[in-house]
Structure formats: C-alpha cells, structure tokens
C-alpha cells in the first residue's frame, strides 16, 4: 500500500509541477518517432514477456496479458 501511495503521489506531482510543458501538435515530431513510443515492436514484446514470465516469478506491469501457457 505504501508503494501505491508513492506512485499516486508521483503521478499527482507530475501533473501539477512545472516540469511538464504544454507541447503543441506541431512540436511533436520527435515524440512520433517509433523509438519514442512505448510499444513500437509488439512481436518483440510478445517474445520478451513470454520468456520472462516463464523464467521468473513476476509478470505483467505494462499491458494486459494475452494467453497463458504451461511454460517450463
């Protein structure tokens, strides 16, 4: 719960603080580059999530899980 509180605090701070600038649509050229987005290679993400969930105990965090598997 403490971690959750930390996250909500960070979120609200970010929303309110002056670090966040209003970026106009014509200034978003760099943000539109694939490497600046958060999911530019879905097939690679698919393999990565599958590999790590079958070798480690943690799962997820950034997206909703697809199907599961009986990975050993």
């Amino acid at each position, binding site marked *: 719960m403490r*971690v*959750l509180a930390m*996250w909500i605090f*960070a*979120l609200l701070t*970010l*929303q309110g603080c002056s*670090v*966040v*600038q*209003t*970026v*106009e*649509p*014509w*200034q*978003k*050229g*760099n*943000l*539109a*580059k694939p*490497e*600046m*987005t*958060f999911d530019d*290679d*879905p*097939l*690679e993400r*698919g*393999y990565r999530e599958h*590999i*790590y969930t*079958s*070798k*480690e*105990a*943690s*799962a*997820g*965090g*950034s*997206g*909703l*899980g*697809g*199907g*599961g*598997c*009986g990975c*050993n």
Partner: protein
Amino acid sequence: MVATKHHTELGAALLSAAMALPCIVSTAHAESAPEKGTLSFKYLNYKESQQTSSDALGVYGRADSKSGASAYDDRILVKATSSSLVVPLNSEWSMSGTLITDAISGASPAYHTQALSYLKDFRRAVDASVTRYLPNGTLTVGMSHSGENDYVSRAASLLATRSSENKNTTWTAGLAVNRDQINPANQIVLNETKRSSEVLLGVTQVVTMNDIVQFNMGYYKGQGYFSDPYKIYDERPRDRTQQKFQTRWNHYFNDLNATSRLAYRYYTDSWGIRSHTLDAEWVQQIGNGWSAAPAVRYYSQTAAKFYVEVDPSILPFPPSPPANAKYFSEDQRMSAFGGLTLGMKLTKQLNLDTKVDVKLEQYGQKGIWILSGNGSKGLAPFYARNLQVGITRSF
C-alpha cells in the same frame, strides 16, 4: 487545364523546392485508425543452458563431480515464429491479429536444477482484436487462445484509452480475464483449471518535446491450479494476487539523434515474492536508415514463502518439504535470485514501408546476483540466449 507534366527547368526547380515541404507532418492528430496496415513476421531462436559444476555450485558441489570442470547442461530450446497483421478498416475502426507457433524441446529440471528430463511440445496461439477510434480515445476488444499438448489458455480483454484535448495526457484502463485448462501428460492431475482477472490503470504524459513518461498500475487475482505438475514436491496455493507498478521514460537527445528508454517495475504478490526490474535501452540512429540499440536489464526477486531451499547435505537428492508445510515448491522460478540481460538490436529501414531487425540477447540468472538479502543457494547458474529476426511491412 490539366497540371501539365512537361515541366521546364524553372518549373521543376519550383516543384522540387516544394517537395521539401513535409508531406507527412508527424503531428499527433485526433485519434484515428493508422493510415496504413502493417504485416510483421518475427522468428525466435531461444536456447537455455545451466552451468552444473562444483565451482558453480560452490560448497553445494556434487560429491562426485570433478573440481574445476565447467559443464553446461542444455535446457530448453524454443524455435518460434510469430506473424501479425494490423488492418485499418476506415478512419474509425481497425483490426489486428497475431499468430504464434512455438516448437519446444529440451530438458527441464524435476526440482531445483537437478534431474533434467527431456520434453518436447508444440504450442500454437492466436489473438485478435478490434479497435474503435473515438474523438478523444479508443476502445479495444481482444480475444486470445493458446494451445499445447497439455495446456489450453483462453483470454478476453477490454482496453479503453482517453486523451486530453491537446493529446498530451492519455489515460488507460483495461480488464482481462483468463481461463486455462491443464491436463498434464503424466496425469498427476486431470482437467485442472485456473481462472484469473487483471485490471490495469495507466497514464501517459508528454512532458517536453523530447520527453514522454508513463505510469502503470496492475492488479491480478487468480484462482485454481498453479502448481507445476512436472515438478517433484510442488504444491502451490490455489490462489494468487499480484500488484505491479511500472514507470517508463523515453528521452530524445536532439544533438545525438538518439533515444534513451528507461523503465522500472516493482512487483509484489501474495506468495511473498517481491521483485524489481530495471530496463535501460539506448536507441542510436546511425544514418542511412540504420539504428543500433544496446539494452540492459536487471532483475531481482525474493523467494516465494513456500520455496524449499536446496539442502547441501543430501545433494543431488531433493529435500523433503517441511513436515507441516501446506504449500511447497522446489521450482527454480520460486527461488531468490538476480537476473541480468545484455542485448543488442539492429534495425534497418529498407524503404518507406519496410523495416528489418535483428536482436541478440544473453540472460544470466544467479542467486548471488540478488539485489539485497540472501539469494537462493545450490542452484546451477542459468543462462539463456535468444536471437530474433523480424521484418515489418506497411501497406
């Protein structure tokens, strides 16, 4: 009058001056279906091994092993192919589908990192989704199905996004439900099921022209059969809840034409496992459509409450679980360890519509690499290398 094609030098000069104007200005328009469809293929070659030697196991070395001998035992080998297709139907709807086939072979330990036994399996998974684009957001419905010899998994999901007027803030909310059927080949259990649901909440915020951050929170709740039927002494709780928190930050360096991508995830669950994951990637544009992206990932997890540590006095035999223990597992994945991945990805944009990429990663997992506290002992260091080759085409 028809715009004539017979241009003179002056005419051609004026036209070429105008062609420098951006035809595709990469502005963030109102959410609408992608302008082009995409077809992608990716091949994966994944190979695991473990280092079983007296040196590697330290004081837990096998009594009969030669000192200093560094033997690597093969573990799992996976050859997989996946293909995905994204098709915009019109400016308000798009569809996507992915097909994955895995050919799995190799060896897997029956407990800890001992008693490797051979296995062979084939998995096929398909998922499909439909997205509706609304003036200020999107709605996506997805379904997936995965089947292998002894395991069938079905899932459905709903994801909604909502953007602020200037598209600088996007909220995400998602729900996924899962239903698995387990019928192990050794028939230790019959027709077991596992059900789960997961909720995801997130926000993506544009911070500057060159910075974007994302926060995600996930909550998972599952009931049913969680044990591994192929492992000795494996009896896990019939329920599990998980909480995950993730932060991501991408920063573009104008002068270097490179992007840094950082991510941190904190995970905790009802089995006593807590983990930290730190991802760092540097995407460097090299010119001529090439880019190189070295990446590093560090992972650390505590052991599950019911994990039974290796007992050095009876190695290589499995320790019996504590007498009054209701739950127990000797699965390496439930132990306490740290994991490190080093990878390199090369991408080449062949033309406006085609991109190819190749990625090589090396992963190592060791008890001593844990972030803090005591890592689990007596487990052979685990290694995995994977090679991915992919191609994407827009149409």
